[in-house]
């Protein structure tokens, strides 16, 4: 069960950030070749990311590359660079339907075979950025066994909906649709970026909302958002203590061959045990909430 609370965006053309970002310890690092890179630097960013991915430090953290859409001249060369460099996950932007993921999967497999990489070792994620994408979210989420998750991208989505970012009402349906699709497909769900770095209270309010909805985490645009996010996702001491007792009771029940056990009169079954394990995993990753 890979923890994916924080996915830090890095502009693919920025040598300094690519050389040092691992020190911030997000759960995943995403090298961006799309919106963060100007048209005249697409080639240099692609080659820089290809080389950076081969740094030994990036073997110890999950790496993601956001490629340009495959219907642009940049998409396929980006994909060649990412797959050949050994990236863990390719993020496809502007995914409107299952056929977008299926095309990506075919191209990834072709490149894996061409460069001798194990077929199936490149994982995928799809970003949903339009009304069509939201409507097709379930088909997208189930389009490939390589998918580790789907993400909602807020800016393009609200543009497509002819609205603008506000208090979150404008994203409510899309968030719920993407989240339900991800859960039905048993993959992860990632929320939109929070772009106002000076509004920490607004960021934390949004994190609280998406955590309660059930998102695994959020795409981030600045390293200083990582600790805030991890802390918000960290369980309280009481939650950790209870989760420990749940897991211990479940282990005892298993030892005795019992299907269902109880703790202080409350039934403990599979979903409760799974939740307790997730609580302990988050506590192990970043302690208890401060």
């Amino acid at each position, binding site marked *: 069960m890979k923890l994916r609370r924080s996915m830090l965006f890095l502009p693919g053309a920025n*040598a*300094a950030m*690519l*050389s*040092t970002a691992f020190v911030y310890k997000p759960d995943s690092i995403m090298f961006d070749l799309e919106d963060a890179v100007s048209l005249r630097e697409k*080639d*240099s960013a692609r*080659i*820089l990311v*290809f*080389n*950076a991915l*081969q*740094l030994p430090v990036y073997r110890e953290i999950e790496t993601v590359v956001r490629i340009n859409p495959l219907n642009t001249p940049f998409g396929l*060369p980006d994909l*060649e*660079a990412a797959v*050949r460099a050994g990236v863990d996950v390719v993020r496809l932007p502007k995914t409107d339907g299952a056929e977008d993921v299926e095309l990506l999967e075919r191209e990834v497999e072709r490149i894996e075979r061409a*460069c001798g990489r194990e077929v199936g070792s490149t994982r995928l994620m799809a970003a949903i950025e339009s009304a069509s994408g939201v409507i097709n979210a379930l088909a997208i989420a189930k389009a490939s066994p390589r998918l580790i998750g789907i993400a909602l991208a807020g800016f393009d989505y609200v543009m497509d909906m002819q609205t603008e970012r506000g208090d979150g009402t404008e994203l409510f349906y899309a968030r719920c649709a993407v989240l339900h699709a991800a859960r039905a497909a048993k993959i992860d769900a990632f929320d939109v970026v929070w772009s106002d770095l000076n509004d920490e209270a607004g960021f934390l309010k949004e994190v609280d909302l998406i955590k309660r909805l059930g998102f695994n985490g959020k795409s981030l645009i600045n390293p200083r958002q990582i600790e805030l996010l991890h802390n918000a996702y960290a369980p309280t001491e009481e939650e950790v203590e209870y989760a420990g007792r749940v897991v211990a009771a479940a282990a005892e029940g298993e030892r005795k061959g019992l299907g269902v056990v109880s703790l202080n009169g409350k039934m403990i079954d599979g979903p409760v045990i799974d939740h307790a394990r997730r609580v302990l995993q988050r506590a192990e990753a970043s302690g208890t909430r401060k």
Partner: protein
Amino acid sequence: MKIVKEALAGTLESSDLLVKVSPGSGTGLEVVVSSEVMQQFGHQIDHVVRDTLARLGVTAGLVVVEDKGALDCAIRARVQTAVMRGAEAQTIDWSALS
């Protein structure tokens, strides 16, 4: 790969470098490196630049590198980009970049 025109890659920001390639005088390969950390790493930077050029099959031209404390991976990337731009390469042989 043959450098046929002048080309640039990179920036002068910290942890990056600027690479300028040109066809030169046509009498072989000349590499000029300047760096903020020349004393400690000048030899290593020169080695990485020449190794990258050799892997790309560049045997002639002038390559001027102005380093601002970049890691080896950034040095390789900027040299590769400048050469491809200077050679007007339309496709990339990824095995030459690894």
